[in-house]
């Protein structure tokens, strides 16, 4: 670890107010010495990802969570390519918590930040290539053949026209020395990468066979329903559980750190009994917060508080004084819940000093740490059994449901499956934080943006994330990798950052403007907040791209031309804008009765541009079509890239048109899909996704489709009505 990064880390910890609180810096996480594999003495195990058995089974241990984004197929494709075997022949297994599966950049085991393909692209291909080379060495030895006479074809070693399955050489290969530098295929030689390998999990996900966390069954499993404080963060003060205990099927009623759990032999019995609990709560300070006051306080802060300087380029906001004209606008984005289709859940068993946890999570290693903490045992006695995730979107990047399930298992002494209701899920999320942001821009004589000043008011997510991680990861580590990564992103501009990068990411980077200033005012009402699909970009894409559209209109310029005029020739975003404008026939204009809006945004390394075609029916906004172009580097699976972008657009449209989490006396008002509306088929648009052909290494795909879409719609609404809608969700006056 280099010195400047340590510096960054200390600054970061100070920011969070956790220095001096007994945090030990610099202790590395204990290496996990257990083998990540099921025991097989005869198999070839060149690394933690691959196991080739004498029975000719090729096992791949998937180091990332499959939550719909397609890593189950994409990462397996990387292995298949270099091992020279068709992807369907590979048995894919969810990797459990183990140090070997740590994210190379975050240095803990995590699926997030649209990084899985990006960080595994090289290492997994190398791992598979090394294994293939070793199998060839073994085959040469076993067959007494000349190594150069051997080749491979779809899982076989081929010699003199004869085919021998890889498994024939597994045991010999396991005894040979593995080299780590087998040569990789040239792009032109790719057989699977860049082709549309059909999703390897599609069949199981259409027959009901795919196993999600909630589908787990273990012997003697009980179901638990947890009643939490109506204001997140409260704890039970007194409990009357008499009626609940007398309900059929109930075996235990236990109090844990954040609520009271009913444990029963079936879910329905637990749920009915939970309704009978009478609980008095110790309410947290959040109880004094309601949405109207939160907004008013943030407006006051925007007006009166200069905040912290986060970033300055040129002469910053001072340059506004020299502008021909100054344009300003203020935008709002509310709190949001993720609402994955599978509500949070976790199955836990504590037995003979061991704790087993079955769960679908983006953070198995954190889950293990939290389970160890709540079970009161060492991490090495905890096993995480990873399952398919019924949606993640960042929500499963937190592991509170694991803490709860393990605490209930410990208190009740029963193996339990904790089942969250939809209401539990909506009311106990780690929310996308609300944000109020004001832009001021100075326009020069040519209608060029000469200066760009932005101030964001709102909560930071990092303190909430760190607080959540403390019990599971400290004192061993707040992983250096995460801190380094955060301080390096994006474009290296956060090196000297004194704020939470997630809070301001995307507000200012995209366009070439001589003078920029970014300020931040932290205002946190206390509602817990965290990653939500595309994180800060989820609002900054809307803010920035709405504002650029306003500036284009003020300058009398075409929105596409205006954007391109502020992008360098080699900009990733430029390529996406040009392709979207071309494919969506931007220059032709829209048909009668429909209106086009444009937006573009870079996030997670990918440039995305979109045209939203909107019509207004009975003062309601209808999105008919979205044309999208993405530049995400080399594409491993074009169809899955498109699926991710379609998904992000629809997820983003839900936020654009409906999403709003509000508080009354600290309680989240929304509970289920009737009051937390999500997009349904009848309202979803036709979506055309186009991929910019590129040879740069792959970047993110799961999130970048989301940030521009709300602005594209808002800009189309302006074209249709002349109204600038600056608050999310978008509502016509």
């Amino acid at each position, binding site marked *: 670890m280099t010195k400047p990064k340590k510096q960054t880390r200390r600054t970061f910890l100070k920011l969070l107010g956790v220095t001096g609180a007994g945090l030990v810096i610099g202790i590395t996480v204990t290496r996990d010495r257990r083998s990540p594999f099921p025991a097989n003495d005869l198999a070839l195990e060149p690394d933690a990802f691959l196991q080739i058995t004498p029975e000719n089974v090729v096992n791949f241990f998937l180091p990332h969570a499959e939550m719909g984004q397609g890593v189950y197929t994409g990462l397996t494709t990387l292995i298949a390519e270099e091992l020279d075997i068709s992807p369907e022949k590979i048995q894919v297994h969810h990797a459990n918590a183990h140090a070997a599966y740590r994210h190379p950049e975050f240095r803990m085991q995590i699926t997030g930040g649209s990084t899985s393909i990006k960080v595994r692209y090289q290492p997994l291909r190398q791992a598979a290539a090394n294994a293939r080379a070793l199998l060839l060495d073994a085959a040469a030895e076993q067959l007494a053949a000349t190594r150069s006479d051997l080749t491979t074809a779809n899982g076989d070693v081929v010699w003199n026209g004869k085919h021998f399955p890889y498994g024939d050489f597994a045991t010999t290969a396991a005894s040979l020395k593995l080299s780590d530098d087998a040569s990789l295929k040239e792009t032109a030689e790719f057989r699977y990468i860049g082709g549309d390998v059909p999703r390897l999990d599609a069949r199981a996900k259409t027959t009901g066979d795919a196993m999600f966390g909630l589908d787990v069954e273990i012997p003697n499993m009980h179901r638990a329903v947890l009643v939490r404080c109506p204001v997140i963060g409260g704890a039970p003060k007194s409990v009357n559980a008499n009626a609940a205990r007398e309900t059929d099927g109930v075996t235990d009623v236990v109090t844990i750190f954040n609520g009271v759990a009913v444990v029963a032999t079936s879910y329905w019995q637990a749920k009915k009994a939970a309704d009978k609990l009478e609980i008095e709560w110790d309410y947290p300070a959040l109880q004094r917060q309601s949405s109207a006051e939160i907004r008013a306080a943030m407006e006051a802060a925007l007006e009166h508080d200069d905040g912290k300087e986060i970033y300055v380029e040129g002469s910053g906001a001072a340059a506004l004084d020299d502008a021909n004209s100054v344009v300003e606008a203020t935008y709002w984005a509310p709190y949001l819940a993720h609402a994955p*289709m599978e509500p949070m859940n976790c199955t836990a068993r504590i037995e003979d000093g061991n704790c087993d946890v079955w769960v679908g999570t983006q953070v198995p290693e954190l889950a293990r740490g939290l389970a160890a903490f709540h079970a009161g045992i060492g991490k090495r006695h905890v096993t995480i059994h990873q399952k398919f995730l019924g949606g993640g979107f960042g929500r499963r990047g937190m592991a509170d449901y694991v803490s709860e399930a393990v605490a209930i298992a410990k208190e009740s002494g029963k193996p339990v499956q904790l089942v969250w209701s939809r209401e539990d899920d909506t009311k106990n999320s780690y929310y996308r934080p609300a944000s109020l942001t004001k832009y001021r821009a100075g326009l020069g004589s040519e209608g060029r943006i000469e200066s760009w000043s932005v101030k964001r008011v709102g909560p930071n997510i990092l303190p909430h994330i760190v607080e959540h991680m403390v019990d599971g990861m400290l004192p061993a580590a707040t992983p250096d990798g995460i801190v380094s990564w955060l301080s390096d992103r994006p474009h290296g501009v956060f090196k000297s950052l004194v704020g939470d990068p997630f809070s301001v990411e995307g507000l200012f980077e995209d366009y070439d403007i001589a003078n920029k200033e970014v300020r931040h005012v932290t205002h946190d009402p206390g509602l817990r907040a965290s990653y939500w699909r595309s994180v800060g970009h989820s609002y900054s894409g809307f803010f920035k791209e709405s504002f650029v559209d306003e500036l284009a209109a003020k300058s009398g310029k075409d929105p596409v031309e205006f954007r391109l005029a502020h992008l360098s020739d080699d900009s990733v975003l430029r390529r996406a804008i040009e392709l979207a404008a071309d494919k969506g026939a931007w220059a032709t204009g829209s048909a009668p009765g429909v209106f086009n809006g444009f937006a573009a945004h870079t996030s997670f390394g990918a440039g995305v541009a979109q045209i939203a075609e909107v019509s207004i029916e009975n003062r309601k906004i209808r999105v008919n079509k979205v044309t999208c172009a993405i530049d995400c580097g080399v594409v491993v699976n074009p169809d899955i890239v498109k699926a991710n972008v379609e998904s992000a657009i629809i997820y983003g449209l839900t936020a654009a048109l409906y999403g709003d989490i509000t508080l009354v006396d600290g309680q989240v008002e929304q509970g289920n899909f009737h009051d937390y509306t999500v*997009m349904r088929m009848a309202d979803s648009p036709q979506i055309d996704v186009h991929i910019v052909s590129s040879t740069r290494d792959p970047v993110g795909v799961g999130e970048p489709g989301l940030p521009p879409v709300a602005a594209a719609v808002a800009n189309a609404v302006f074209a249709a009505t002349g109204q600038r809608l600056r608050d999310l969700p978008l509502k016509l006056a």
Partner: protein
Amino acid sequence: MISFTLNGDPVETDAPADTPLLWVVRDYFKLKGSKYGCGLGLCGACSMRVDGQSVRTCILPVSAVADRAVMTIEGLGSKAQPHVLQDAWVAHGVPQCGYCQSGQLISASVLLEQNPNPTSDEIDAAMSGNICRCGTYPRIKGAIQDAASQLRRETDSGNAS
């Protein structure tokens, strides 16, 4: 004891009569393909076919299916013998997280039985009770249209099953 048929097999259960069918099928009969998403009949994740209709089973007490025929995703088709819709789902790369897809397939199968040639609006109407947070709607629609035309081709050539 409440008796009904589950994927063609006669079954009986001693689950409390007010237990929603979803939880009886999942927790007592251990068929896990039907999912819990909302518990209020709003999302369709729990859809099963009851006497040929797509029903939200999270709000249907098991007593209501006494002597009736219940079909879950496990009864619609299998890996070895997939329903034409399941094949179309795979061909269109529909599932993302996959959690909603059992319910989507159940609703789609009922739609195609009742309307072998649905328009886009008719598909919207039949499928809008089923939420997909991964936003697979465009692919679901494409898969339904493909499956519908394949079924019509089979019917036209006189070898429909």
